[in-house]
């Protein structure tokens, strides 16, 4: 950006490319290796240790965090001392590799590729993993597979860390698949329940569907560029050194399919909410910094392939695949979040929606905004999940049902409540929280780069986010305590409590809302019997009631406090509203342009030299990078001219006027949702009261509602239609083939064999073989009898025979030789 940040006073200039160095940067490969080693230690020795192996996990993550922090520090000190006059921070990535295996001319390495993006992700993953491990020691304490839980959790982090510092696609796939495996193990951690193991399988297989795209796309990258080295791929793609644009486009599409699967984008997002079956710390890790971010990270990592392949930011382009999928995802998932009763599912859909924002940001060319949103989202989403876990663990009898077992608990859980509110504010994008700075940049970029549809998608998504989070917050923390929460609060819970009042009004909206799948249960649910059942069930089972006088233990609240602080604080690394562009400067060299040539597309100058659309050749960009455009940049030029597929445009300059529509909609969303919640759940009289029960009174709205409750029928589509359409005819054909062809062959062969066998038995076996056997037996017996006298048992006689034989042999030898 134009203004050199305040953090980086101009001490030194003239270094276009800097060398980043330092022990931590050069040994960053240790970061994933430490947890990988810890995984084996936990597996082999965990059970014998007093804390069941969790000490290895926690220590390993701390070790990784220390190295990641050291590397971050060294990276920052190298970037701050190397920038050119235009204010561009270009530092060469630290790439170290060993050859893992070789095939013909291709070498595949393991190692590290450290640049701003990798550093950001490493620090993020190591940090959040450490907090989650700490939280887990309390949350899954006493679990029967405690040791295995920590083993899988540690390997999971290791997989993500290995992926983010991958120097080539092979290591990236390796980390990607390790994560896939570990997510399967962790989601299905409590596999004794059918639903959990089903969710684990669903997650695994859905992601696998996308992974086919990763393999195909990687193979195509190898075919196009002849290398899988990420830095080389980026340089070649950015320089336009490939034969066919068409081929590159299909490569980008194939790779993006992998990202759709992994990051839970629209058609394949169905696995993510189901993945809530795993323990809450897993959900928080999975949804914040690992696994689902991997897809977004992949797009950011080899951005030139997508940017050039899909012509992002080309003149006149108003839609492209990545932006479209991202935009659809963010709206669909936000809509689905409205009809969830499970607090974790609300958060899961919100994750899907935020991932949609990130993808949309990458799709419209807002690389920095998207990557920064990865960074900030990780903190507040992790915090929200851990807060949900804290509520469930301490206040709600391990239930996650907002309508049955929560409500009114804000008084007794001040820390959890505070952390939740701060993170919710960040998620909604309320000004001066982290989410505001990152999300606003994406939305603003969409408008500025003339992706108008996605600008509208972005602000409508912001409205919906504000609304569904307000609904979830109301249900969780406000209103009257219900179910387990009532017990926790020590309140004599009222069977005619707020939410359950609806039972008396059969046409109540939220009644139908939550319980569409089990209408039959609700039909006889006259007086909120759910409460009593939940309550009595727990009591009669003699479970110790998690009756805590105050908030959760410190191992749970400490991560919450830290993350809540970061949910606000992280935003100030890149706050365009305050003219802070520090994060952008740290990562802009990772966008993936040929740093060797000293060109820079992240900076503002790319807008200027390419007013004419023909000048797309990167060498010209390179030539233009040194200086002359710095002055043009200073002006904070608002006009945007499409700069073609070979350059990422600079982020727009922030103005409050541009941010205003989004902010107004957020405020509106909060207000609307708050009053609607009061009207629906608390039966307060307000302007929204007439809308209560609309889903049952109005047929189209009811249809829309059940469409949402049934998750757009996508699961039906996949399981009932696609799987059946694919599986049934094939199964039938296979059965027919089996019955008629294979069985026929088998039966014929069987009959023929049996007949042949009979003939063989009678003729060959009985006569020839038995005859031969008997004859040889008889011969042996007879000759034995004949020779028996020789075996007198007298040693002398044996000696005589021996010497006699030797003598005869000698005589024969002499005669024959003579």
């Amino acid at each position, binding site marked *: 950006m134009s203004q050199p940040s305040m953090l980086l006073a101009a001490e030194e200039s003239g270094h276009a490319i800097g060398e980043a160095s330092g022990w931590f940067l050069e040994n960053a490969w240790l970061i994933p290796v430490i947890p990988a080693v810890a995984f084996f230690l936990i597996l082999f020795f965990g059970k014998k240790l007093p804390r069941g192996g969790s000490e290895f996990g926690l220590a390993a993550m701390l070790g990784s965090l220390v190295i990641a922090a050291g590397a971050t520090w060294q990276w920052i000190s190298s970037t701050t001392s190397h920038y050119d006059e235009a204010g561009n921070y270009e530092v060469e990535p630290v790439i170290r590799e060993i050859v893992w295996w070789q095939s013909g001319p291709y070498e595949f390495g393991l190692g590290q590729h450290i640049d701003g993006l990798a550093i950001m992700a490493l620090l993020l993953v190591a940090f959040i993993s450490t907090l989650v491990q700490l939280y887990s020691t309390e949350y899954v304490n006493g679990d029967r597979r405690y040791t295995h839980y920590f083993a899988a959790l540690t390997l999971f982090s290791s997989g993500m860390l290995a992926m983010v510092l991958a120097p080539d696609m092979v290591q990236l796939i390796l980390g990607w698949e390790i994560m896939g495996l570990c997510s399967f193990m962790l989601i299905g951690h409590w596999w004794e329940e059918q639903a959990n193991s089903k969710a684990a399988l669903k997650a695994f297989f859905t992601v696998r569907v996308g992974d086919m795209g990763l393999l195909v796309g990687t193979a195509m990258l190898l075919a196009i560029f002849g290398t899988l080295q990420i830095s080389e791929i980026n340089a070649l793609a950015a320089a336009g050194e490939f034969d066919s644009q068409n081929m590159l486009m299909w490569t980008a599409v194939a790779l993006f399919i992998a990202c759709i699967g992994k990051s839970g984008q629209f058609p394949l997002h169905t696995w993510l909410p189901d993945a809530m079956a795993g323990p809450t710390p897993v959900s928080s890790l999975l949804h914040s910094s690992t696994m689902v971010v991997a897809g977004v990270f992949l797009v950011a990592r080899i951005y030139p392939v997508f940017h050039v392949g899909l012509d992002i930011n080309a003149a006149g382009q108003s839609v492209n695949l990545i932006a479209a999928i991202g935009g659809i995802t963010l709206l669909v998932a936000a809509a689905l979040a409205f009809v969830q009763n499970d607090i974790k599912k609300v958060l899961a859909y919100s994750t899907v929606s935020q991932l949609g924002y990130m993808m949309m940001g990458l799709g419209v060319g807002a690389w920095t905004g998207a990557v920064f949103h990865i960074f900030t989202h990780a903190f507040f989403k992790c915090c929200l999940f851990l807060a949900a876990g804290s509520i469930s663990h301490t206040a709600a009898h391990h239930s996650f049902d907002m309508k049955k077992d929560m409500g009114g608990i804000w008084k007794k859980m001040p820390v959890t409540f505070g952390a939740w509110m701060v993170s919710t504010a960040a998620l909604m994008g309320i000004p001066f929280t982290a989410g505001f700075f990152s999300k606003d940049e994406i939305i603003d970029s969409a408008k500025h780069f003339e992706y108008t549809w996605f600008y509208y998608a972005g602000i409508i998504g912001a409205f919906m986010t504000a609304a569904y989070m307000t609904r979830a917050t109301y249900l969780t923390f406000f209103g009257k305590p219900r179910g387990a929460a009532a017990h926790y609060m020590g309140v004599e819970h009222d069977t005619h409590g707020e939410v359950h009042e609806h039972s008396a009004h059969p046409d109540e909206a939220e009644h139908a809302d939550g319980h569409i799948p089990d209408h039959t249960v609700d039909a006889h649910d006259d007086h909120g019997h759910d409460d009593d059942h939940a309550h009595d069930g727990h009591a009669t089972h003699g479970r110790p009631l998690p009756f805590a006088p105050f908030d959760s233990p410190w191992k749970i609240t400490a991560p919450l406090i830290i993350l809540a602080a970061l949910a606000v604080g992280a935003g100030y690394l890149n706050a365009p509203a305050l003219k802070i562009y520090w994060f952008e400067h740290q990562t802009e060299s990772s966008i993936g342009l040929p740093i060797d040539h000293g060109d820079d597309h992240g900076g503002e100058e790319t807008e200027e030299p390419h007013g004419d659309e023909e000048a797309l050749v990167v060498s010209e960009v390179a030539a233009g990078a040194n200086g002359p455009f710095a002055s043009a940049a200073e002006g904070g030029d608002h006009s945007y001219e499409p700069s073609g597929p070979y350059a990422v445009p600079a982020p727009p300059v922030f103005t409050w006027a541009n941010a205003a529509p989004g902010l107004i909609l957020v405020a509106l969303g909060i207000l609307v949702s708050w009053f609607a919640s009061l009207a629906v759940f608390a039966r307060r009289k307000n302007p929204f009261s007439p809308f209560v029960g609309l889903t049952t009174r109005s047929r189209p709205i009811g249809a829309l509602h059940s469409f949402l409750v049934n998750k757009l029928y996508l699961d039906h589509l996949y399981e009932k239609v696609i799987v059946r359409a694919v599986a049934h005819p094939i199964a039938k054909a296979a059965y027919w083939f089996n019955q008629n062809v294979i069985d026929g062959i088998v039966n014929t062969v069987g009959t023929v064999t049996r007949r042949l066998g009979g003939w063989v038995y009678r003729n060959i076996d009985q006569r020839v073989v038995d005859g031969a056997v008997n004859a040889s037996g008889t011969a042996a017996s007879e000759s034995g009898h004949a020779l028996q006298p020789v075996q007198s*048992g007298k040693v*002398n006689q044996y*000696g005589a025979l021996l010497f006699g034989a030797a003598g005869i042999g000698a005589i024969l030898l002499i005669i024959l030789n003579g």
Partner: protein
Amino acid sequence: MYAFNFLLLSAALFSFGIYGVIARKNAVMVLMSIELILNSVNLNLVAFALMNNSIDGHVFALFVIAIAAAEVGVGLAMVLMIYRNRRSIALDELSEMKG
């Protein structure tokens, strides 16, 4: 002609040995006869070594002596066991190997 004497002597010893192995009933005598056979072979080896001006035969003879010692050790042990079990070392009474 010089070697002939050695060979004659060794052949004679060999024949005595063969006779002893076949004809004697006493197990100890049989063992001694085997020693005679081995020594006749040794004599041959040394004689040929002298004739061919080679040291190989001598070395070989030393080996044979060492092995003969081991063989006698084993043989005498067997004889001792047989004696303990049967109070006799007459070979013609030993016909357990009869087929």
